C-alpha cells in the first residue's frame, strides 16, 4: 500500500429498470424515467384551468381584490401575473420554467406551459411540464366604468389665474408645462378669462401640478373641497377638490414703484424698479443704480404691490446720442453699461430727453428703443403718492426695438415652431379678442427670439416647412436676432425617439 490512499476509480454499473427491464443508470427510484412518469404524476392536484378578469377598454387584468395591472399579451408582466394567480398550487412543487403557448387573441384563452419539479419515491426528483389554460372574462375596471358613465367627471381642478390684461405669462407657462410634461394627467384643460383651468381625475395629480407651478412662478394658493357623496356605512366620503393658484401680477419688463416699506427692507432700493426676470422669484433691477435684488413669493404676497406701467404702455423712442458713462457691470449674469442718452419719442420729435439708462451696451445712435414714458403718463398710484420728494426720470428705457427690421421679414415663416397644449377655448369672446390673442402670441414669439435665457427652459422644434428665402441674403449688417439652428429639436414625427441637439451656443 502506498503512503497516499489509493482510491479505486468507481464506475457506475447499469441496472435493469424494475418495470420495463431496459438498461439504465441506477437512480434512487430504480425505475427508468418513463416508468417513473407513468407511475407518478406530480401534476396531480394542480389546477389546469383558471379564470382571470380582463378589462377590454384599457387592456388590464384584475389582481384581486382591487388592483388592475396593465399588460400586453405574451409579455413578461402577463406571465408573472399568470404564475402569481397559481401561487397556492406552486407551493407544493418547485417551478422551473414558464412560457406562453400562442393562442388566438379573439379566443379569450391564454395558455401557459409550466415546468415543475417534485421529489418522489425515496429521493428521486422528477421534472414534468404541463399546460394551464386561463379563460379571460371581460369585466370593465372601475376607472373605465367611471369614465364611461361621465367622461367629464373630474375629481380635482386647478384654477390658475393672473390678474393682468395680457396673456404673455400663460403662453410661456404653456411651453414650460409641455416641456416638463406636467399636465399629462389632466383630463381637460380649459382657457378662462385671465387664466386657465386644469381638471384632473386624481387629487395627487393635481397636487403635483400645483407643486410644479410653485417652482416655476411666484404663486400663492388656496385649497378647498366640496362633498359629492357620502357612504355612512363605510364612512367614506367622495370630494371634489379645487386648488386656486394665483400668479403675481408683476411681469417681466414691468415698471414698478415699490412701497416705502419694501424699498427700505430691500436696502433702500430706488422706489422705481424694473422687473427683469420672473421665475419662482421676482428679480428687480434699479435702472439708475444697477442694483438687483430678488423677492420670494412669500415676501411678494406679503406686500402684494402692483406694477406701475406694463409692457402695453411701452413707447418707442429714437436714440440720437449715446455717451457711455461707466464701464461694464455684470449684474446677475447680464451685462449692463450705464450711459447718458439723448432720445425723443417717435411720435413727438419735438421734445428731446436727456436721460440715464442702463442699456448702454446695446444702444447706438440711430437705434430704436422701447421704454416707459413717466413724463407723459398720468399716474394714479397710491405708492407714488407716498413719496414726497421723489424725482421720477422722464424716460426709462427697457429694451431695444427691432421693429423696422421686422418689417422686412414680415410674413415670412420662422425656422422654428412651438407646440401647444390641447386647450378648450373660451367661446364667449368675440372676433376682436381672437385678433388680440394673435398679436400677443406674435409678440411672445418675438420675445423668445430676442431672449436666449427665456428660451433656456423651453423646447423649440424645427419647422419642416421652412425654406430660407433669398431675401435673407439681402440684409443690413445688424441682423434681427433669431434662434440659432443648434437649439432646435427635431419634431417628433411618429412618437419615436427625439433627435434633439439641445446645446446652448451662447
Amino acid at each position, binding site marked *: 500500500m502506498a503512503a497516499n490512499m489509493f482510491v*479505486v*476509480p*468507481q*464506475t*457506475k*454499473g447499469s*441496472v*435493469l*429498470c*424494475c*418495470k*420495463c*427491464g431496459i438498461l439504465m443508470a*441506477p437512480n434512487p*427510484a*430504480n*425505475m427508468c424515467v418513463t416508468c417513473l412518469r407513468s407511475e407518478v404524476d406530480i401534476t396531480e392536484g394542480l389546477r389546469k384551468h383558471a379564470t382571470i378578469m380582463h378589462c377590454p377598454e384599457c387592456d388590464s387584468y384584475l389582481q384581486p381584490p382591487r388592483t388592475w395591472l396593465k399588460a400586453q399579451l405574451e409579455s413578461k408582466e402577463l406571465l408573472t401575473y399568470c404564475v402569481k394567480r397559481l401561487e397556492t398550487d406552486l407551493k407544493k412543487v418547485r417551478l422551473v420554467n414558464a412560457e406562453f403557448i400562442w393562442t388566438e387573441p379573439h379566443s379569450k384563452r391564454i395558455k401557459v406551459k409550466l415546468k415543475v419539479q417534485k421529489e418522489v*419515491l425515496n429521493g428521486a426528483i422528477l421534472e414534468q411540464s404541463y399546460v394551464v389554460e386561463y379563460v379571460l372574462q371581460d369585466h370593465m375596471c372601475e376607472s373605465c366604468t367611471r369614465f364611461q358613465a361621465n367622461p367629464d367627471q373630474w375629481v380635482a381642478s386647478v384654477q390658475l389665474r393672473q390678474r393682468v390684461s395680457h396673456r404673455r405669462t400663460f403662453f410661456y407657462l404653456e411651453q414650460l408645462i409641455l416641456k416638463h410634461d406636467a399636465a399629462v394627467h389632466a383630463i381637460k384643460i380649459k382657457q378662462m378669462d385671465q387664466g386657465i383651468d386644469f381638471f384632473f381625475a386624481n387629487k395627487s395629480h393635481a397636487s403635483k401640478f400645483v407643486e410644479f407651478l410653485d417652482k416655476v412662478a411666484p404663486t400663492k394658493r388656496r385649497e378647498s373641497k366640496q362633498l359629492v357623496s357620502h357612504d355612512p356605512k363605510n364612512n367614506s366620503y367622495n370630494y371634489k377638490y379645487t386648488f386656486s393658484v394665483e400668479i403675481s401680477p408683476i411681469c417681466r419688463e414691468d415698471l414698478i414703484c415699490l412701497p416705502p416699506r419694501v424699498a427700505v427692507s430691500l436696502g433702500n432700493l430706488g422706489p422705481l424698479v424694473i422687473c427683469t426676470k420672473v421665475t419662482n422669484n421676482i428679480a428687480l433691477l434699479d435702472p439708475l443704480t444697477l442694483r438687483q435684488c430678488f423677492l420670494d413669493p412669500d415676501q411678494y404676497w406679503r406686500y402684494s404691490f402692483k406694477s406701475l406701467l406694463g409692457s402695453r404702455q411701452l413707447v418707442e423712442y429714437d436714440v440720437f446720442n449715446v455717451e457711455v458713462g461707466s464701464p461694464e457691470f455684470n449684474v446677475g449674469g447680464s451685462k449692463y453699461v450705464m450711459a447718458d442718452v439723448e432720445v425723443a419719442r417717435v411720435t413727438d420729435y419735438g421734445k428731446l430727453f436727456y436721460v440715464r439708462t442702463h442699456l448702454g451696451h446695446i444702444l447706438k445712435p440711430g437705434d430704436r428703443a422701447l421704454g416707459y414714458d413717466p413724463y407723459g403718463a398720468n399716474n394714479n398710484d397710491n405708492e407714488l403718492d407716498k413719496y414726497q420728494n421723489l424725482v421720477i426720470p422722464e424716460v426709462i428705457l427697457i429694451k431695444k426695438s427691432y421693429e423696422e427690421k421686422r418689417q422686412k421679414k414680415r410674413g415670412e415663416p420662422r425656422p422654428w415652431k412651438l407646440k401647444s397644449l390641447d386647450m378648450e377655448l373660451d367661446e364667449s369672446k368675440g372676433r376682436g379678442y381672437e385678433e388680440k390673442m394673435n398679436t400677443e402670441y406674435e409678440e411672445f414669439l418675438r420675445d423668445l427670439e430676442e431672449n436666449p435665457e427665456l428660451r433656456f427652459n423651453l423646447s423649440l422644434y424645427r419647422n419642416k416647412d421652412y425654406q430660407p428665402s433669398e431675401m435673407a441674403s439681402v440684409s443690413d449688417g445688424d441682423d434681427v436676432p433669431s434662434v440659432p439652428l443648434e437649439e432646435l429639436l427635431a419634431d417628433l414625427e411618429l412618437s419615436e425617439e427625439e433627435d434633439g441637439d439641445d446645446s446652448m451656443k451662447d
Partner: protein
Amino acid sequence: MATRLQFENSCDVGVFSKLTNAYCLVAIGGSENFYSTFESELADVIPVVKTSIAGTRIIGRLCAGNKNGLLVPHNTTDQELQHLRNSLPDQVVVRRIEEKLSALGNCIACNDHVALTHTDLDKETEEIIADVLGVEVFRQTIAGNILVGSYCAFSNRGGLVHPHTSIEDLDELSTLLQVPLVAGTINRGSEVIAAGMTVNDWTAFCGSDTTATELSVIESVFKLREAQPSAIVDEMRKSLIDTCV
C-alpha cells in the same frame, strides 16, 4: 423457481423468514398463508420450522446461517434455542453468540462456503462464524453500506447486490465469493435486497411487489430455472451417507 408472496401485507419476505439448503425458518404470522406457501414448496425436502427469536418475528434479520450451522443473537431465549435445536436436523449446529451487533442477519451474509461480514464485527465472532458455519470470512462493504447482510443476498449459485454498486466493487466481490453477481433491485425498485427476498440453491421467495423484470433477473442470476431440489438434496445425501459410513 421464484415465488412471490406476502407476510401480513408486507412485501419484506426476507425479514420474516430464513432459507438455507438444509432448513427453513419462518416467523409466526397472523394467518397461516405464509407458512403454507413455504410448506408447499419445501415440505418434502427440508424441514420448515416456525419460530421466534428474542420474542420477535423479524427472525430473518436476527439470525445467520447455512447448511452447517445457525447463529442466533444473545437475546434469544432458552426456550427458543431449545426449540430450534429440537426442530433442526442434527448436523446443523445452533449456537448463541455474544455480540454487540445483535442483528446478525443484517451483519452477516453467507452461503455454504463464504461469508461477508460487517466491518466492525468482533474478532471472536468472526472466529465463531468460521468455526460454526464452516466458511471463509471477509469483512466488506457493499456500495458504501456496512450492513452487508441487508444489501446483498447470495447462494452457492449466484448473488444479487445493491443497485448502486460500482463495476469494480462487483468484480471484487465476485472474486471473493466465487459466484456470479449482478446489481439489481427487489420489490419494485427497493435497494434492500436481503429484506425483500430469501434464497437457496434451488428456490427463492420474493415480495409480491417484485416486477417481472426483477423476477427474471433473480431467476437468471441464481440459476433457478433448471434447478430441481431433489437433485441437489440427493447429492447432499450421497455425501452424507458416504461420511457416515
